[in-house]
């Protein structure tokens, strides 16, 4: 008995010491909630929070009232072919495309090289700002608000195309890669898996602001992408495995431009009409869209006092602590381990919650009226209507980040490696932190979130009207969705209104 108890006590003491170390670590480390650099945002004040929530409820009512008329005819949207104009033809010309691809490839090489040879300070090296601010936040805005620029820019595609072209000139009868048939059952799951990895790197990875580590990540992703292209062919991999083609492509469905290759059309169109699907999305893309939303919400949650309390609880709970200890080495540190567990739980919960509301939709409409769509089909049919919300979050969370931290590009282009160069004479530029006022950021954020949700409600109604047999059933089916979306608006606004804390 005695030795056993002694070992037990020693273990207890060890556990207590580890626990203390963990808590100390949690309390003292103040890193950043998002990929790199800090945000200076103030919490949204109470009156804007209340006004935003009230507007969301009231405007939802307006949308629903509009559809109550039962008009089921949804006209085809108007378009305007930009290729009919001289400016449009110039922009869509091969020369411009070639210049853009060359530029993107140059940036990719620059980021990798800067990460490997440049200064380790993230503000003196061009890699972190280019990746996390300009490309990740900036390009998401361009995709959602203007159009799918990534299709033209994609440097991995450009490099592969160039290699293919070169091989054709040298060995005309050889083809690059194995060009295996892509297994249909695999869907876009490769992109989903890579996206989860990317989300983790952006939100949790402690080394995400280290230029060298970031560079290694870019190299790893490049290798994975090129292997995918070699094995399954470039088209297949871009469609199913290249995360950013999938991601920016989904955002660009909201955008007011579309390119239809077979008809040689580059059209202006109303915003959001690209989000009205003819048939349900694949399961993997459905999961992907839900990940887009849940990851941004999780990023917001990481800065609230609520997260601080959850993190504390996880450290002290007997249930979670062993998991934290075992994950600690893989994830980097204790905070990263806790956040990783929370991230996985949150992402899964979000998926299940959406499925549950689709279940409610299923049970609130008679089978005949919903044309025998199953719960899963409903989930896959309505998921695209959530894209405007993802875009709205991106705007609300990262606008000031893009405008303030993005300015670091001005000195960095003159001195990309931190070697003290001054290529364009802008090395000494001071970042203007007053470029946007807190009030401007608050109002834009609240308007973006409310608008995003209203567009989502509208899209879901149009989809329901198109697919369901009668308009009454369509209307009823949308009530659970409406609950979900209004609740989600409130959650988003609540996050913005929370006093900012930095636990992770």
């Amino acid at each position, binding site marked *: 008995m005695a030795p056993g108890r002694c070992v037990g006590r020693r273990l207890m003491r060890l556990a207590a010491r580890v626990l203390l170390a963990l808590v100390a670590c949690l309390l003292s480390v103040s890193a950043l909630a998002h990929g790199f650099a800090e945000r200076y945002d103030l919490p949204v004040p109470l009156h804007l929070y209340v006004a935003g929530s009230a507007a969301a409820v009231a405007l939802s009512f307006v949308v629903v009232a509009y559809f109550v008329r039962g008009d089921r005819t949804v006209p085809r949207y108007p378009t305007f072919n930009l290729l009919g104009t001289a400016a449009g033809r110039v922009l869509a010309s091969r020369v411009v495309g070639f210049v853009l691809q060359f530029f993107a490839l140059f940036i990719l090489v620059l980021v990798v090289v800067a990460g490997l040879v440049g200064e380790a300070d993230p503000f003196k090296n061009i890699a972190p700002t280019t990746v996390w601010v300009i490309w990740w936040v900036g390009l998401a805005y361009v995709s959602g608000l203007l159009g799918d620029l990534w299709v033209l820019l994609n440097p991995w595609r450009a490099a592969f195309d160039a290699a293919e072209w070169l091989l054709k000139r040298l060995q005309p009868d050889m083809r690059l890669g194995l060009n295996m048939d892509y297994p249909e059952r695999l869907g876009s799951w490769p992109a989903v898996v890579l996206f989860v990895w990317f989300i983790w790197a952006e939100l949790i990875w402690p080394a995400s602001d280290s230029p060298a580590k970031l560079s290694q990540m870019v190299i790893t992703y490049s290798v994975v992408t090129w292997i995918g292209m070699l094995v399954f062919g470039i088209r297949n991999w871009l469609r199913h495995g290249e995360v950013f083609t999938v991601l920016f492509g989904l955002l660009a469905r909201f955008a007011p431009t579309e390119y239809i290759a077979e008809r040689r059309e580059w059209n202006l169109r109303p915003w959001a009409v690209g989000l009205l699907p003819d048939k349900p999305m694949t399961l993997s893309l459905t999961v992907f869209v839900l990940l887009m939303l849940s990851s941004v919400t999780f990023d917001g949650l990481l800065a609230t006092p609520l997260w601080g309390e959850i993190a504390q609880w996880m450290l002290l709970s007997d249930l979670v602590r062993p998991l934290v200890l075992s994950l600690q080495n893989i994830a980097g540190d204790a905070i990263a381990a806790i956040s990783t567990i929370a991230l996985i739980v949150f992402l899964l919960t979000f998926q299940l919650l959406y499925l549950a509301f689709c279940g409610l939709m299923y049970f609130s409409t008679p089978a005949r009226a919903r044309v025998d769509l199953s719960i899963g089909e409903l989930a896959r049919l309505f998921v695209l209507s959530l894209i405007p919300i993802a875009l709205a979050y991106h705007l609300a969370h990262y606008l000031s980040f893009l405008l303030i931290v993005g300015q670091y590009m001005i000195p960095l282009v003159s001195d990309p490696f931190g070697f003290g160069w001054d290529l364009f004479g802008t090395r000494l530029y001071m970042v203007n932190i007053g470029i946007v006022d807190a*009030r401007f950021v608050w109002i834009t954020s609240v308007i973006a979130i409310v608008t995003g949700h209203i567009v989502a409600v509208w899209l879901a109604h149009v989809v329901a009207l198109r697919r369901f047999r009668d308009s009454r059933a369509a209307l009823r089916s949308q009530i659970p969705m409406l609950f979900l979306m209004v609740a989600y608006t409130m959650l988003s606004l609540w996050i913005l209104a929370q006093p900012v804390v930095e636990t992770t």
Partner: protein
Amino acid sequence: MTTPFVETARIFAFVIAIFGSGLSLAAPQQTENATNAEAKIEVRIENRKVVGDHVIRLTQGQLVEMVWTTDAAEELHIHGYDIRFEISPDAPAEVSFTAHATGRFAVTSHGFGDPHRHGHETLVYIEVYPK
């Protein structure tokens, strides 16, 4: 027979009632700001921690005079405004600036005299609210 419109109106009343009551519970606290043209703020650091409130609230445009006293020498950094200064136990350190930009800015210590300290510990936040 109820029309779809009446039905939705009823459901909406319900939604509004639920979320309305939720609002008042979840609502964040409002902050009070000093509105004088000048603000004089004294901060005392002991054991590498700020004594008292961890958030200093200011209003945009205020001329701020900060007086720092400490029990150990350190180098401090006001982020965003990018002001760096040293504090020491010998004499209070005075820093003054105009709070021209709104936002929430961390004041971190860069661990003077302790090369092993890698992280930048946040001592206090300065929140500048719009006028």
